[in-house]
């Protein structure tokens, strides 16, 4: 069975400090991993996906198949990064669509 684990419910850091949001997964196939973010009073939105290997808003995430991890990192946290972050794993649905399996989420709180 596919499972995504985010061990921290809350991560609190000071502005300018490094951030690492942990995500571990279990999946027998070749996973596609995502990070979604939900800012206060906004809808859930895609932050980044591992296949695109991009840096979005200073965040990066590397898929480590050996450790089955996809941790989200940012070298210097900003107050506007405060949000709920969800790690998700995708299992394709044939030729169409994705079925996302989400972790429970981690609240990131950046203090000034």
């Amino acid at each position: 069975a596919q499972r995504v684990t985010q061990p921290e419910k809350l991560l609190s850091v000071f502005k300018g400090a490094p951030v690492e949001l942990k995500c571990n997964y279990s999946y027998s196939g070749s996973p596609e991993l995502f990070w979604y973010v939900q800012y206060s009073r906004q809808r859930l939105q895609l932050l980044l996906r591992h296949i695109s290997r991009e840096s979005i808003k200073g965040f990066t995430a590397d898929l480590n198949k050996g450790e089955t991890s996809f941790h989200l990192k940012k070298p210097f946290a900003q107050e506007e990064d405060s949000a709920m972050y969800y790690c998700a794993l995708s299992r394709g649905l044939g030729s169409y669509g994705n079925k996302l399996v989400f972790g429970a989420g981690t609240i990131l709180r950046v203090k000034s």
Partner: protein
Amino acid sequence: GAGVSQTPSNKVTEKGKYVELRCDPISGHTALYWYRQSLGQGPEFLIYFQGTGAADDSGLPNDRFFAVRPEGSVSTLKIQRTERGDSAVYLCASSLGGSGNTIYFGEGSWLTVV
């Protein structure tokens, strides 16, 4: 353009009543998903439509839950004989067809069963 639209944004209903939640996906998106998010949890998959047909309904918890998408655009999630445990945020999402496309979420319908 407009994003995924969901109505109502909030619904309070009595135990045992019937509820309908509506989703209007992004224009041109053939794939439509329903997820349920309980307090303190991440979203959980309920059902996926490709066009008008439910391609995967493995996440529906029981036969009180049903969803339709008769014209391949707007979808309605229907819950019969609601129970207090059905209280959650129901999220709709859509994407272009194809497993590599980004999934866009609506703001959700917050259902409270009293």
